């Protein structure tokens, strides 16, 4: 189980408070699909993902970005219990959705980059380190049922 200091907890919460899920969720999701196009393999039902413009205008992409960030909210509020919090979602992504867990790492990096673009120097190097520790713990929890 990952151990968190008081500073780490407050830093993660402080960053999360600055994020508007409805604004940033769609941006993050579009960025993943554009920068790592092989992730489109999981979204056959999303319609037109053939061009960058189409991805940026796609309503299903935007909606899914919000869904994923709402799930991240659970991690922010359950930092001591991430494996248990995400056990069902991990199971779902493995058994039913058949998602390569390496995709979680790609998503984590895109989340951090999008947040950095938004917060700019307000995301200090130390905060970035803490935020990435948090996200990699989420990635671990999401990969935990892959066996």
């Amino acid at each position, binding site marked *: 189980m990952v151990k968190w200091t008081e500073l780490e907890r407050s830093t993660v919460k402080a960053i999360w408070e600055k994020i508007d899920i409805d604004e940033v969720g769609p941006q993050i999701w579009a960025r993943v699909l554009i920068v790592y196009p092989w992730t489109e393999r999981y979204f056959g039902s999303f319609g037109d993902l053939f061009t960058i413009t189409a991805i940026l205008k796609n309503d299903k992409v935007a909606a899914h970005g919000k869904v994923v960030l709402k799930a991240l909210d659970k991690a922010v509020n359950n930092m001591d219990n991430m494996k248990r919090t995400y056990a069902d979602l991990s199971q779902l992504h493995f058994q039913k959705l058949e998602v390569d867990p390496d995709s979680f790492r790609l998503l984590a990096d895109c989340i951090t*980059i999008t947040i950095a673009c938004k917060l700019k120097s307000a995301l200090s190097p130390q905060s970035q380190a803490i935020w990435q520790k948090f996200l990699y713990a989420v990635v671990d929890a999401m990969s935990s049922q892959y066996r």
Partner: protein
Amino acid sequence: MSLTAKDKAVVKNFWGKVAPKAAEIGGEALGRMLTAYPQTKTYFSHWADLSPGSAQVKKHGATIMGAVGEAVSKIDDLTGALSALSELHAFKLRVDPANFRILAHNLILCMGMFFPGDFTPEVHLSVDKFLQNLALALSEKYR
């Protein structure tokens, strides 16, 4: 994932905007890499101060970005352009090439931080590919 003509044009165009701040971005990225990925500190134990903002970090970050800029100008032959640097990293510095990806992540993060309006997903895609190709050229001489 080799660079298309479009990727090269996007990278050159974006670099035109980034160039005035390149040294600063390099220093910032290196400092963040050392902070967020402490395993990278193992290559810099000869430095007195590894904290972000230290003189050595800033100077070396600027050096790195100088090389990146060179690579942009010789984007059609990255292997040739980086030949000497590849030998240095392979035989003298012996940096595990996995770290090039880590540095690339931090360079991208800083470019986005300094130029959020210009660092669109489309630019991000081409820059990511470019840095990946750069890393490949840098590891050319390793074995």
